[in-house]
């Protein structure tokens, strides 16, 4: 071992023999190709960006970031919102919603409804062309309808269309549907059917069609390229029937991680994304953000709630449910989980929409009242262990929710903590979605669940509250049953008179607020952020993206020029 002392010192490992070349080559490469930080696109930091409106001009690209990648661009086959987002720019329905939530025409110019409400005759726009030049006709509508009710089509959205008794093509631009019974959501449901090109799909299996990845539509944009896992590139359709969209390109970029997406936003890699509550409140208030971006905030058409299994002995008693309602501080949840970006919910409708009833019973945070109600219902802590009990049973239950949703996870945690304070022990279990639905919700093997519903723009919620919808896999999984509510639900969907419908839905909300089969928690706000150079954005109750084809970037501010 002593011979080691005589060795020349090998200071750098890389100076030896064969490694030397590799080392220097690497070094050379690194130096030669050193980054100038300028290579990475930095957001333009010009003053007055948000002030100058400028004239509408054609050009530029809008890059939106998304966490989930669209799966398939045929709307009836897709279950995810990303697919619907993109497909919405490529396809149109017969009707759509205006900013005041009234129904206006899309592919249908006008329509007639028979006095008994059972027949709708759509008069379709003329001269609309598919992206491949073929003219759009009523046959396409018929094709779409037939496809969606076809047994072989794996779609989840066929229910509304099965109410149709008869569908007819009267001529090239007239389409008529006849319903079995009056069906209030009928008209709007035709906004949900994206019209498909019959001439391309006739006789083919829709699931095997290439159209899912290479859609042919007649909407404002068409798909140019789809780099799987990375991005979708859409070009504007110059002959769109509502006018050529100002923004030439729309790019939907997939970044599976919200934090990374946020960094890309700042680096100029994307122009638009949905912010998380934290990002909205804490990270976008700097001078940089205020100069270069515009933030929006509006309530979404969805609400989060905790639902009780009404067959469970604990929850059969209304007082128990109400007690839990008093024990939860909704404002705390909105503050902590949503950073204030939401509103406490009192029922299954979004505040400030026409079906919403503002005068129902409210449950302000009142733990004393909660304890008192529980005592009335027989719950007291007789053995001093901090947990209420009755007849020897401790008040313990499990809240189930789905994995991967931070907002829900945090909401459940807060509920757990608050209920602990009044002596109820709660366990939280987050389950993988399909196990959740299949094993627990469908089989009604749960005590309480924390979930959300997205509300359609039509107030009909028959499927959720009607006492007949309690079979396995149906949506009244809490086994709620109230004859008056049943009657009101029927009334609401079978009349077309808005005032009549309003009365029915108002009364339903009163009843639900009293009986509290759900604890209605909150309606979250959507908080998108868009680069300041995009003008023409008009926030409305239905969001901001409804008029995307009308957004523009003034000439001076245009940034991306992509060669055709």
């Amino acid at each position, binding site marked *: 071992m002593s011979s080691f002392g005589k060795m020349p010192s090998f200071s750098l490992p890389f100076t030896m023999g064969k490694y030397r070349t590799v080392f220097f080559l690497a070094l050379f490469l690194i130096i030669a190709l050193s980054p100038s*930080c300028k290579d990475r*696109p930095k957001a333009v930091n010009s003053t007055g960006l948000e002030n100058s409106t400028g004239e509408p001009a054609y050009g530029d690209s809008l890059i939106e970031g998304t966490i989930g990648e669209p*799966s398939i661009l045929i709307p009836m086959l897709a279950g995810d919102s990303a697919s619907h987002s993109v497909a919405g720019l490529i396809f149109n329905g017969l009707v759509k919603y205006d900013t005041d939530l009234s129904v206006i025409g899309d592919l249908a110019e006008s329509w007639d409804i028979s006095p008994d409400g059972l027949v709708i005759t759509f008069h379709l726009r003329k001269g609309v062309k598919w992206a491949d030049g073929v003219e759009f006709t009523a046959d396409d509508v018929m094709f779409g309808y037939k496809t969606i009710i076809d047994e*072989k089509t794996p779609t*989840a*959205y066929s229910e509304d269309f099965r109410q149709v008794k008869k569908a007819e093509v009267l001529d090239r631009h007239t389409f008529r549907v006849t319903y079995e019974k009056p069906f209030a959501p009928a008209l709007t449901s035709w906004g949900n059917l994206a019209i498909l090109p019959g001439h391309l799909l006739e006789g083919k299996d829709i699931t095997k069609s290439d159209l899912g990845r290479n859609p042919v539509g007649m909407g404002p944009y068409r798909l140019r390229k789809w780099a*799987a896992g990375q991005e979708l590139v859409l070009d504007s359709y110059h002959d769109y029937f509502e006018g050529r969209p100002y923004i030439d390109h729309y790019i939907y970029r997939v970044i599976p991680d919200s934090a990374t997406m946020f960094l890309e936003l700042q680096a*100029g890699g994307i122009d638009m994304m949905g912010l998380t509550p934290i990002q909205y409140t804490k990270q976008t208030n700097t001078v940089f953000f205020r100069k270069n971006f515009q933030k929006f905030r509006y309530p979404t058409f969805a609400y989060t709630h905790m639902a009780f299994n009404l067959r469970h002995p604990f929850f059969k008693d209304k007082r128990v449910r109400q007690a839990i309602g008093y024990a939860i501080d909704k404002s705390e949840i909105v503050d902590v989980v949503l950073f204030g970006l939401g509103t406490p919910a009192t029922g299954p409708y979004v505040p400030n929409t026409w079906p919403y009833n503002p005068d129902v019973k409210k449950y302000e945070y009142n733990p004393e009242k909660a304890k008192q109600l529980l005592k009335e219902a027989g719950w007291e802590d007789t053995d001093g262990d901090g947990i209420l009990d009755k007849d020897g049973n401790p008040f313990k239950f499990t809240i189930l929710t789905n994995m991967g949703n931070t907002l829900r996870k945090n909401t459940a945690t807060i509920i757990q903590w608050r209920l602990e304070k009044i002596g109820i022990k709660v366990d939280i279990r987050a389950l993988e979605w399909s196990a959740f*639905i299949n094993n627990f919700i469908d089989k009604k093997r749960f005590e309480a669940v924390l979930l959300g*519903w997205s509300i359609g723009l039509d107030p009909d919620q028959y499927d959720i509250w009607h006492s007949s919808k309690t079979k396995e896999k149906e949506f009244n999984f809490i086994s709620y049953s109230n004859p008056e509510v049943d009657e009101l639900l029927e009334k609401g969907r079978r009349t077309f008179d808005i005032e009549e419908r309003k009365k029915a839905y108002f009364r339903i909300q009163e009843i639900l607020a009293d009986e509290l089969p759900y604890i209605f928690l909150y309606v979250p706000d959507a908080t998108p952020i868009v680069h300041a150079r995009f003008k023409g954005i008009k926030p409305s109750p239905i969001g901001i993206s409804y008029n995307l084809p009308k957004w523009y970037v003034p000439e001076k501010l245009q940034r991306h020029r992509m060669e055709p």
Partner: protein
Amino acid sequence: MVLYLAKRLLEMIPTLLGITLISFFIIHLAPGKPTDILTELNPKITPEARERLEKIYGLDKPVIVQYGLWLKRIVRLDFGESFSTDRRPVMEKIWDRKQPLLDRRLFITFMLNLLSMVIIFLVAIPIGITSATHQNTLYDRITTTGVFIGFAMPSFWLALLLMMLFGVYLDLLPISGLKSMNYDSLSVAGRIWDRLSHLILPVFVSSFGGLAGLSRYMRSNMLEVIRQDYVTVARAKGLPENEVIYRHAFRNALLPIITLLGLSVPGLIGGSVIFENIFGIPGMGQLFYMSVMTRDYTMIMGILTIGAILTLLGNLLADLGYMLADPRIRTK
């Protein structure tokens, strides 16, 4: 030698079968059916609609039949279609012939791991050798400590720290994806640098653990070899130290390393799940994670099997390498 190869390949077959059995078994441990994701909690879906979907996916046949059918297709590398709503063939999502080679998921993961292995090899070996030859000096102590820390360091933590340092605070390196937004508009040199800079952090994180392990192993191997008689003989013969170390000691110590590299393949592939996730790299690991999250039946089985095949190949190559490096085995 060819006989040896053939024998090894044949031996792989029952192993492969076993792997498919295990994957299949695992998937069926799950409660619920894979079509549940499609039929999310959407009030518009009726039970009849769901049943229709299940029939379409052939889930109503008995398990053994399902396995048999699946196996038949596997042999042709047909893993069926992904259960996610895009319904593309599984193989296509892993290895899309329509994409440029550089963009295919399997390729990306493969290249990243290959790069990591190369770096591990190039860096760990010199470190190992020099620590062995400089045993107990400060250098040795530092590297040994470094190695221990490397072993204990959770790779995802390292990734986070580096991301924070280089990505957020210093803003020097990109922290997600494989290329920038404006890649297509860059010059050739710009593109090379772009890709390189995106690779720096992920590859570093990926190789870190393996580096520690391998350099330590190299060191202990060298130490053992140096004590051998033939080294003393070489020295006694008056050979320069360089030659002693490199010609004699090193090559003998190297042999087990090759096998070790081969054995590190499953670790690398498994690790790719984590760091592809963190760095937003569209490789096979990220796809696996997403399919686990969405219960994508066929996709998971496909990737699991492919991962296992890659591992077996890695072992095979390691064996080959060993055979080539060790003349004793060759002449058997």
